[in-house]
């Protein structure tokens, strides 16, 4: 990994001081972050297994990227709002969304079952880059409300090549919107390497929008925490947007439908495994005396329980009512949607299905 990244925790788990990002995280918060990474990872492993046994149509593995996700989510205040792709399992873990709910979309039951307003995280966005615009729109709304909340907008390296992200950056910068763009540069957009998205580090692009940028070690949960927190605070104080490029790696397939051995080397994956975010946090916490075997065993048992709970919950999930799909299209009744709904109702009746 390039050395020009902000890093507060070395791969060996040694604490590195950085003058721009002093960080005093107490042991409770560090332990909470450790637990969040372990549980997010467990959700990931179990969901992948559920897909492989036919219970989910798809799953988007997160292995390797949990560090920055958990760190950044811990940097958010309760009223801050995040917009994510389909891969931010770590952030949902931190924000308290029951992992069972993450499965609804991938089982084809509903687009999302959590209340975004309550959780402060929008629904999974599959359309690459579109939510960058939603983020900026939301942030401009915060400005107009005169609130001191900030928005965290998460997307991948591939998304930076979309027009939507460009437009979002232009508006964010020109209106000084309170938004932080957090790009998880996981080196790959499906089978396209990041070298096909940019000739220079992605973070360099921010300068063209007149926006400060920081490149961080995305496998370092502490850098994720400190740098995101500073950027969110700057945003809420009227300082405008920041662009964070978190350099990390997707160690699993793009989705359960993908076979990464067709486009990349095992060696690359092994290299990044040696930079694992959980390993380095555990080493640090052990050296600090912040965790002991009893604690790690307890978290491991909790993760085991979570796996069982996910399996049991999938069995209990009921297929949705076909007419339910018309329910949340518009806030208020809409003529066309009502007509479509009636037509569907007739159709179903004609099949004598209901």
């Amino acid at each position, binding site marked *: 990994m390039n050395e020009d990244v902000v890093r507060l925790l070395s791969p060996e788990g040694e604490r590195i001081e950085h003058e721009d990002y002093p960080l005093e995280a107490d042991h409770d918060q560090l332990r909470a972050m450790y637990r969040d990474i372990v549980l997010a990872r467990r959700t990931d492993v179990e969901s992948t*297994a559920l*897909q*492989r*046994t036919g219970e989910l*149509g798809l799953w988007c593995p997160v292995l390797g990227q949990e560090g920055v996700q958990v760190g950044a989510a811990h940097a958010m205040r309760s009223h801050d709002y995040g917009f994510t792709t389909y891969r931010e399992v770590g952030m949902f873990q931190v924000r308290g969304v029951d992992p069972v709910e993450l499965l609804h979309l991938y089982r084809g039951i509903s687009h999302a079952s959590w209340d975004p307003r309550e959780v402060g995280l929008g629904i999974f966005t599959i359309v690459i880059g579109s939510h960058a615009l939603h983020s900026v729109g939301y942030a401009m709304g915060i400005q107009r409300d005169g609130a001191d909340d900030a928005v965290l907008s998460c997307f991948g390296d591939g998304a930076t090549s979309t027009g939507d992200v460009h437009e979002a950056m232009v508006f964010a910068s020109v209106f000084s919107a309170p938004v932080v763009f957090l790009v998880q540069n996981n080196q790959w957009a499906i089978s396209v390497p990041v070298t096909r998205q940019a000739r220079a580090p992605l973070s360099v692009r921010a300068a063209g929008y007149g926006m400060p940028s920081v490149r961080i070690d995305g496998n370092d949960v502490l850098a994720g925490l400190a740098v995101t927190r500073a950027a969110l605070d700057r945003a809420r104080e009227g300082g405008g947007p920041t662009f964070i490029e978190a350099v990390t790696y997707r160690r699993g397939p793009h989705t*359960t*439908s993908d076979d990464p051995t067709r*486009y990349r080397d095992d060696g690359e994956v092994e290299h990044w495994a040696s930079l694992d975010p959980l390993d380095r946090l555990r080493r640090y916490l052990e050296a600090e005396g912040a965790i002991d075997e009893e604690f790690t065993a307890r978290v491991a048992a909790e993760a085991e329980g979570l796996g069982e709970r996910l399996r049991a919950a999938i069995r209990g999930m009921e297929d949705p009512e076909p007419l339910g799909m018309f329910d949340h299209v518009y806030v208020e009744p809409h003529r066309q949607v009502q007509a479509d709904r009636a037509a569907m109702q007739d159709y179903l009746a004609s099949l004598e299905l209901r």
Partner: protein
Amino acid sequence: MSTQEFALPDVGEGLTEAEIVRWRVTVGDEVSVNQAIVDIETAKAVVELPSPFAGTVSGLLVSEGTVVPVGTPILAVEVRDREPVLIGYGVAHEGTRRRRLRTAGPAPAEAPAVTGGPRAKPPVRALARTLGIDLATVTPTGPHGDITREDLQRMSTTRDTPGSSSTVSIAQSATSGVPAIRLGEVIPVRGVRRAMAEAMVRSMEQAPHVTEWVDVDVSRTVELVERLRGRADFEGVRVTPLTIVAAAIVRSLRRTPIVNATWHDLPDGSAEIEVHRHVNLGIAVASPRGLVVPHVPGVDRMSLRQLAEAITEVTERARAGTLVPADSVGGTITLTNVGVFGVDGGTPILNPGEAAILAMGRILDRAWVVNGGLAVRPVMELTLSFDHRIVDGAAGSTFLADVAAFLHDPVD
């Protein structure tokens, strides 16, 4: 106790079937939830499936090497009673008849026990199949006695040396690109072979083929290849007669762009011909997995050197089996080199969606009349098939004659 069956899931968004590559458990084994039980290969990937049940394996319902449709029960597990039943997988009682398998194969009960068999990761197994190596004949050097990629590579290099290894079948040693076939073997049609078969049938059904041919004295092309190989700016670039034929195609399409086109049937019953703006040149490659036609996009904007490099790159990937799906869709015209197999020509079948395919034959010294006298010249036969809905005889012939003229007198 009750028996639960695990039905082959769709692991890749709309797949209809998969091949059982390797069982990781055998009858009588205790399995736990999420324990890896089997490797399967779909059109998209080789993946490992975990067990949804805990219990004792009572049956492997499909033998290795068999392709089965999604939904086919593949594994039976004896679970303790009141074990929760997964949605979508009904409880089958002992003695339930198994669904008949679509593809013939040895009865599952006779399948050799897997536990003692050779160990290798799925991509390595896939490579072994590609190289036609029986894993049982490989000495493993990896951790836990695993066979590694290097083990296979070592084996395939020694094998390529004539007379070295006894595992080479006669059929295989004959010509590179022709996979080994055992006498009496019944070959399941799947993967690349199935894709090839479907494309060829579609093409023959839809496009009225016309085939024309011409012989050409390629002395100057051969000289040009030699000259380019010696040139400093072509150092490290692989230049072959195929490179020059590719260049000839690009050049000749300028006069007859209709040869680089696609026929579209529209839903209302009418049709359109799309004349392509750029030339994406498909190269037919006999890969170890079968015929593949990856393409080099935008050859009309390339220098000769770029063209040579791009063709080398894509054919090497084709032979190594590392093409990505995008390589194989979007070609606009195809070049196939049948000369490497020692023949002159044939009646090439169009790649579906394309208007023309050119086959280049071997280069052979022949008696050739030059200025009224006999001379010995290297001669190549060119065969062009075109879709007569799109290309009429005049355009097709002009194009073929232009390619021949260029090879007779190439300008670099």
